[in-house]
């Protein structure tokens, strides 16, 4: 039966201890590097030292993160905690999809990659019907036309566009 302290804790139990431990450990590690990663300047006021604000921030992270860790109602990493860490790991798949998209755009061009990426990820998520495939293609096209064609956001043309003939090449580089 959960204790009163567990009962009053805001948020789920799973993963809290692992997160708090990792947070404090990283903060301690960063603070241990403060002398090599920041400079102390002679004849400069204490609050104007380049080291002052990193020290305040890391001190705050350790103090408040440490107190949070100390006041957590759990002291041992449970099976649920490890399950939660595995759940965090599963998100890496989508981070990799995102990075794949990022790396492909400068090579293959924004329009072709988006037209391939959105339906492919939709397929991966289980939307395999004609309607959803059509919707994902429509969304991909709309995104490119709106952002690159109309709003002219800064996304470079793909290296592959260089092989296109003259006028088409500049049109693709500028708008697609």
């Amino acid at each position: 039966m959960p204790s009163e302290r567990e009962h009053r804790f805001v948020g789920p139990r799973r993963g809290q201890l692992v997160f708090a431990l990792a947070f404090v450990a990283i903060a301690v590690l960063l603070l241990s590097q403060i002398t090599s990663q920041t400079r102390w300047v002679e004849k400069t006021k204490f609050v104007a030292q380049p080291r002052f604000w990193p020290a305040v921030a890391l001190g705050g992270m350790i103090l408040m993160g440490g107190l949070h860790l100390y006041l957590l109602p759990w002291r041992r990493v449970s099976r649920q905690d490890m399950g939660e860490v595995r759940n965090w790991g599963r998100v890496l798949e989508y981070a990799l999809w995102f990075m794949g998209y990022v790396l492909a755009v400068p090579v293959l061009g924004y329009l072709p990659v988006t037209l391939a990426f959105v339906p492919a990820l939709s397929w991966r998520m289980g939307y395999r019907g004609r309607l959803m495939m059509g919707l994902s293609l429509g969304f991909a096209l709309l995104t490119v036309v709106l952002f690159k064609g109309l709003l002219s956001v800064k996304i470079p043309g793909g290296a592959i566009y260089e092989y296109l003939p003259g006028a088409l090449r500049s049109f693709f580089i500028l708008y697609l």
Partner: protein
Amino acid sequence: MDLILSALDILMRWDVALALLAGSIGGVLIGAIPGVGPAVAIAILLPATFSMDPIVGLTVLLGIYGSSMYGGAIPAILINTPGTAVNALTTYDGYPMTARGEPQRALSLAYSASFFGGVFSVVCLILFAPLLAKVAPLFGSREIFLAALLGLILVVVAHRGQALIAGALAAFGIFIQTIGLEPVKYSQRYTFDQDFLGSGINLIVVVLGLFALSQAFVLLMDEDEKVHITKLRGGMFQGMRELARHPRIASVSASFGVLMGMIPGVGEFTAQFMSYTYAQKTSKRPQDFGNGSSEGLIAAETANNAVPAAAMVPLLALGIPGEALTAMMLSVFYVHNVVPGPALFQNRMDFVVALYLALLILNVLVLLFLLVATKSLIQVVKIPNRFLGVCILTLSFVGVYSLRNSATDCVMAAAFGLLGYILKRLKLPAVPIILGMVLGGIMEVKLRAAMARVKQPFDFIDRPVAFILFLIIVIVLVAHAIRVLKDRKERKEAEWQTKTSSTNFGGLMLRRKGSFLKGRGKQVRARHSKLLRRLTDLF
């Protein structure tokens, strides 16, 4: 009057009109889709607005901010799922109305209340603008430092039960903004000799990671839900008439929204909570609250829509954002070299009033759009969750990559996305990180400037505004400490009540028997047997 005319002159442009239309309709759509929310949309659109004029870019973002709450009421009322986080209270009375067959009435009332809240706050602030213009110049470096510190403290203590970790995350935000080249002494801080860290970590990369990418990850990992929407019948104008029957609740709730919106770090939730409590306590039918009370719905919707205009006050007058959305807008100002703060109120008052007028027009546009298009609009609620995740992931690319065309930025955004996902899973707040980044930067600059003229510690608070701010900080901290001690006492009492064994007579006797069988009992029995032996020896 001249001020309003020159403000209207700024707005009389086709691109501003288009921005108003796009912002208002886009905001309603985004608000109506549960799982997207204005923070995600603003984060994605932020880099796209950099190429626009400041007034155009800000109008789009303000449009999304101001109108998303109108849209957020739709799923809150129809399917009991708030479209944006601040519409959570709308579900209390909105959904029970739908359940008893009055969805049209609930929607119409929510729109009318939101409209009243929005217009009320803008009118209040236009009227107060000259007064603000007089107060704003009283804020020098030390006052702005103290106001930023107060904002940060308020954000941290607002997370009841999570203040320590919220504080630690705010400190993490301050740390992130210190990474890179220090601008005064030109020394590197925490760059680990990596070139990509030399220019620091961009706020937009962090915002996109923590809000947009993390939300995409949440949706992609989620399951799709089947949504059943009730058909709407009847007119949309009945809400106006019903709102007119509760002028007191509407005006008090809007006033709460304006006041709470102006205080950094407090925002919609406190305003809603106070309005709802006030409405319930003064109502003739308090038992209806939570079961489809029109007064409850008015209180919730009026208060939350009065906040956006008021939240612009600390941003414009002092350059201090009170929450994540205004923190994002601050970067639009910086990109265009328009520095919000006392000088903006003194020199560009027409620009400030133009922003408020844009918000006013926006409210009218949104109301008209909703009155006409609600029946078609509710279909967006049906978009499956994971497909939304795919869309947000695709759009996040535009936001991050268009910033500097840097794959490193995208890696960092993905890392912050993962952090945001973990925070969402653990129900920990991400907003303190953003505010720590923004306010930490302001505090560093202002403290350095302020300390140049301070010889003794008390000189720092020798000006009236600085002293008042310092006093407020002390009061907030003391009040928080008292609340923590009170919570601790309550917890101890609850622990005592649950830990102690049964207090009935049978239980008491059982424990008495137990005690007799152990230590003390042994001593008593030994004494008794000794006395008994002496007594028997006598005979």
